[in-house]
């Protein structure tokens, strides 16, 4: 059944397919490590997708498109920060509100942009390196965002593990009262983490509308934000495991697309639902038995912080 699919091409395309989820998941991972549960990833992604698309079409520059996507996602996350950090609203409900609002607003903003092709994001010119039979395609055949997504994983891992900033962020996420008592600005750190998460989700969304699809349609992210949230749980809040999770997911979605194109006898709808099914399956495995992902969850995750003194 897989005979017609070149493994090098498969790996290369799964790396591309995973980019939106890696970016969004790394952003959310940092947010959750700071003790905040933002369920609005889907809304921030789709806002990034539409803002990035508009920016890229208007300026003719795909790079500025990604900047626009990051700004769009961060702008929406600012509302979440305001609601949960200053108005002390429930984080679950605020995240849902963000998604519902983002879906509506993005479709409103994108109205004049349906059916347009955005400026292309080309592969980086590695010259002869890209000609190496298998590795060339896998390692040197991508656009800059693919490398950025991997670099963001490495950077997040390093910052969380080996820097003072990472230590403070984790302290705030594990016990906000203790961090507050030590004099750290819990609220400020969390707002910055939320903005970072919004910008990353926005860039991930922009990658969907500028590279993956590439055009604008309503609801273009199709649940990628929810899958990113699931990947954070799968990763037990560790960056490298998020990368593995995203590649696993990317592999499945590329494989099912290839099967669809190859005219497999399984109906298209059942292939399209497979990534969601497998995400659920992975969640189940991770949260039960020896996985015990829940034990790694930041201790203050989702709790409202109000400094009474």
């Amino acid at each position, binding site marked *: 059944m897989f005979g017609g699919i070149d493994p090098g091409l498969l790996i290369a395309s799964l790396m591309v397919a995973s980019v939106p989820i890696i970016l969004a998941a790394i952003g959310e991972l940092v947010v959750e490590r700071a003790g905040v549960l933002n*369920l609005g990833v889907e809304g921030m992604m789709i806002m990034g997708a539409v803002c990035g698309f508009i920016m890229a079409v208007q300026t003719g520059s795909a790079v500025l498109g990604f900047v626009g996507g990051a700004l769009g996602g961060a702008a929406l996350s600012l*509302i979440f920060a*305001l*609601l949960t950090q200053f*108005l*002390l*609203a*429930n984080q*679950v*409900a*605020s995240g*849902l*509100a963000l998604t*519902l*609002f*983002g*879906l*509506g*607003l993005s*479709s*409103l903003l994108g*109205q004049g942009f349906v059916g347009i092709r955005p400026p292309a994001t080309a592969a980086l010119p590695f010259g002869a390196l890209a000609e190496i039979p298998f590795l060339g395609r896998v390692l040197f055949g991508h656009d800059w965002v693919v490398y950025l997504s991997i670099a963001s994983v490495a950077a997040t891992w390093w910052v969380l593990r080996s820097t003072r900033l990472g230590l403070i962020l984790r302290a705030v996420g594990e016990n906000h009262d203790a961090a507050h008592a030590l004099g750290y*600005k819990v*609220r400020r750190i969390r707002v910055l983490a939320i903005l970072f998460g919004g910008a990353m989700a926005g860039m991930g969304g922009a990658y969907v509308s500028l590279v993956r699809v590439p055009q604008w349609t*309503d609801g273009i992210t*199709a*649940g990628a934000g*929810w*899958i990113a*949230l*699931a990947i954070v*749980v799968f990763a037990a809040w560790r960056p490298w495991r998020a990368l593995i999770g995203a590649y696993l997911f990317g592999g499945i979605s590329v494989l099912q697309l290839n099967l669809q194109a190859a005219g497999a006898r399984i*109906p298209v*709808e*059942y292939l*399209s*639902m497979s990534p*969601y*099914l497998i*995400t*659920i399956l992975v*969640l*189940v495995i991770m*949260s*039960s*038995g020896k996985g015990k992902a*829940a034990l790694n969850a930041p201790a203050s995750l989702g709790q409202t912080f*109000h*400094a*009474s*003194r």
Partner: protein
Amino acid sequence: MPMLRLEKRPSPSRFWQGMTPVLAVVLTMIAGGILFAALGKNPVEAIRTIFWDPLFNAQFASYSRPQLLVKAGPLILIAIGLSLGFRAGIWNIGAEGQYIMGALAGAAVGLAFYPADHWFLFPLMVVAGALGGWLWAMVPAILKTRFNTNEILVSLLMVYIAQNILASMSLGLLRNPEGGGFPGSRNLSQYPAASNPELIAGTGMHWGVIAAFMAVIAAYILLQRHILGFHIKLAGQAPRAARFAGVNPTGLVLLCMGISGALAGLAGLFEVAGPAGQISIDFNVGYGFTAIIVAFLGRLNPIGILLAGLLMALTYIGGELAQFMLGLPAAAIQAFQGMLLFFLLAVDLLSNYRVRFGARAEAA
């Protein structure tokens, strides 16, 4: 600069609990007006078209008023179910999927009997609809109780699976064999034994609306008078105390998810056999998600949900009217509904905290 300070109230203010939804609606109208103005529409006219004309404009009211119950029915029915779980800290946000599966299960039973004319057919479809939604909700519920899997993510991911099943069914198994190859099932509303008709002409009242009213009354009694309602509230407010009081958390998850799934499934069945008429790729219009807003707008209180459902139905109808009269995009209404939830969450602060003016003793 005058400093604002928040002081936690010992118990939520009853006055503000009642007032915050009203305040949120007013703020949403103002912010929505700004949004509509940015789109180049007259904001006052837009707000009037959405909130006033469907009910009181002589030209449109005769069509719009019945629509109010048609749209509010499913919203209230779903939101009542969701509110029980939300109160207990159980987050079923996949009502949209349960709604689709209820509609599919109910419609499949109806279509299986086509064209027989049995008196029991519609009741049987109702049971199948509730069962379909219940089963779909049992997946996240059992995964949560058995494997401790996050019910928010699973119930939401199940929506995407349900949507794919819906597409597959309306293109395949349930497609109308006499439909000339077009997607979509036979029209149930034209099949008397299986249809959910308007019961009193010109009111929009159908069985789904009656079910919604019954759900409101049942939920009110459950929460006010029954020990189970007390357990639900206790589990949400003080999970540890609930465990000491002998509340079984596993049972509570299964119960709350089950009720909300069954009610969402019922809403789907009533919709597909009545106003929508047939299974088609997009017969669902997002009631399952909007019902989340309705549940919060109604403060998770049955009577509040009744009022919130009617108000949200009004924004649907008024939105359609504004689309038709003013060319306001449908997406603007969706953004408007999302905004309502933002303001609601924002002003909720007032019921749980006291806002004090003046310099604070210590920096935060």
